[in-house]
């Protein structure tokens, strides 16, 4: 019979627990409390229900479940919640993670395979979690001759740039992290950072595979940025705004894809190239140059790059929805919040509980989010689809497509938009508003 810890003594274990508790209390009261008070001195406390929400009051309210809702509701409208949870990182990362799993299953079904099967009993539903734990537990290997600062910074910058892109996408009316007046230009500025990061990390790894992949990524992304920008100008001309929320509002009655199908097609192809997806996945062509500019990444560094890639995919799909598919606009299908609960509370047997602060989200926001998610998931599936169907194309064919054909089509799209504008059909002051 073997024991896990042969030297185990219960008294020592309990003694060490008390030891731990003693040190935690000591350090918290000597260091933690002063820090809490210093932070509280600088933070501007919110006013809820005409009362200043001091931490003491907040704790009192949190103890009573019927009074926590106003605090939660107030917290949901702060910037930190927007950045971390709903229209920002958490929401996007959730969709991105779902995309990684769905991609594998979806491609398997297309190619008559089974895909992930064993992890989690039902259709391999826990495969993603297993992959995540594997990446986290693996060692991070830095090549001996790599340029270490840039190599370390690369994945972080990649995720950062992808997060900046995500923050510009409006999900529901008023639910967007950053809403600048020049939103679309901000998108162009953020997209411009990706080729730099790719080529710098590729150079820093000091390997021929990464360098070839990085140069390919640079060629391809720089070539496709121009048709990307040009294909979106039609939407800007017709909606008369660079603000992404305004562009969505301008599509209340019809989507711009109905009038600018060429622009939408060009934009979709440039999305595939910017995301390095099949058939334009030359930068990480796994059958030619190992894994392209990702070759030397291992462990969680590779995980971060992967996270950034899928965040970018979500953001591009969201941008397509915002610009061409009407964003959050759609018929009101979300049921209204039952009025009885707001006015009379919930009655269970003899107990009646009233919850001030309901409903937590208004109906418009939930409906908008629903439609946005449905459309975005559709576009994401369309982006994934070519990977199961098409082979990879050569680099000269990619560049030829980008520099000649797509730019030409994008100009045709701009002329269509200008024609609709000057004929007085669409745009500011047009017949169809």
């Amino acid at each position, binding site marked *: 019979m073997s024991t896990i810890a042969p030297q185990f003594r219960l008294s020592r274990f309990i003694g060490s627990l008390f030891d731990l508790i003693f040190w935690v209390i000591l350090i918290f009261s000597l260091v933690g409390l002063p820090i809490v008070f210093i932070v509280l001195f600088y933070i501007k406390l919110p006013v809820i229900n005409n009362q200043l929400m001091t931490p003491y009051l907040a704790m009192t309210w949190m103890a009573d479940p019927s009074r926590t809702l106003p605090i939660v509701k107030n917290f949901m409208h702060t910037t930190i919640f927007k950045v971390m949870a709903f229209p920002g990182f958490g929401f996007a990362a959730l969709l991105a993670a779902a995309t990684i799993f769905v991609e594998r299953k979806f491609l398997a079904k297309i190619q008559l395979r089974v895909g992930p099967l064993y992890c989690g009993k039902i259709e391999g539903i826990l495969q993603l979690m297993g992959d995540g734990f594997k990446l986290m537990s693996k060692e991070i290997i830095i090549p001996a001759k790599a340029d270490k600062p840039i190599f370390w910074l690369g994945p972080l910058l990649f995720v950062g740039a992808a997060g900046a892109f995500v923050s510009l996408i409006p999900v529901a009316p008023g639910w967007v992290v950053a809403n600048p007046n020049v939103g679309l230009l*901000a998108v162009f*500025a953020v997209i*411009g*950072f990706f080729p730099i990061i790719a080529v*710098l990390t590729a150079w820093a790894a000091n390997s021929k595979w990464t360098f070839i992949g990085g140069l390919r990524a*640079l060629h391809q992304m720089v070539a496709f940025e121009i048709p990307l920008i040009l294909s979106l100008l039609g939407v800007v001309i017709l909606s008369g705004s*660079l603000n992404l929320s305004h562009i969505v509002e301008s599509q209340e009655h019809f989507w711009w894809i109905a009038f600018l199908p060429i622009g939408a097609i060009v934009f979709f192809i440039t999305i595939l190239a910017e995301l390095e997806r099949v058939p334009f996945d030359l930068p990480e062509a796994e059958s030619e140059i190992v894994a392209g500019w990702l070759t030397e990444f291992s462990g969680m560094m590779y995980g971060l790059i992967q996270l950034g890639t899928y965040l970018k995919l979500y953001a591009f799909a969201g941008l397509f929805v915002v610009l061409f598919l009407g964003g959050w606009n759609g018929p009101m299908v979300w049921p209204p919040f039952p009025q009885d609960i707001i006015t009379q509370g919930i009655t269970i047997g003899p107990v009646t509980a009233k919850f001030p602060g309901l409903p937590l989200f208004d109906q418009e926001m939930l409906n908008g989010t629903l439609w946005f998610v449905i459309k975005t998931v559709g576009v994401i599936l369309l982006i994934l689809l070519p990977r199961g169907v098409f082979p990879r194309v050569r680099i000269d064919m990619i560049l*030829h497509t980008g520099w000649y054909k797509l730019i030409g089509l994008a100009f045709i799209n701009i002329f269509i938009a200008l024609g609709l504008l000057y004929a007085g059909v669409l745009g500011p002051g047009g017949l169809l508003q």
Partner: protein
Amino acid sequence: MVDAVFLALSVLTIGSAIAALEIRSLIYGSIALMLALSGVAGFFLLLDAPFVAMFQLSVYVGSIAVLILFTVMLVRRELIFNKVEDKRRRYAGIALMIVIMLGIGTIIIGSGLKTMDTNSAEVDYKKIGEDFLTYYSPALIVMALILASSIIGAMTLARREDVIDGQRAD
């Protein structure tokens, strides 16, 4: 708050500009140049001109810095630079810079532009577009002609008639 941001941006911009000139490694030099250009974009944001700031980022950082990186990585260093460096050139350069900065500084201070208004509303890009198409339209036309001619010139220079590529897919 604005003053602190202004100071931080100034330190970032000037520091990375000096680093771009002084660092031995060309790659790090071009990264420092990118930082300097991004710092300039930050100044534009402080001056309530997000339109110019975004173009600064997408044109200078997104395109020109990429071109510089490209050149540095693909061409051997001896082909770009031949190293002519001595103390006298260096001091002459610093002296020239100080003279130019003093000149520009006196002009700016003499022009009455002494305070920076950071609380005004941001410049509307529609107003910029209107100005370009009305008052500044000759300048716009001249710029368009210059750009078009330089693009045509670049294409003529880059064209090679002696190479026939049999593998092209078109």
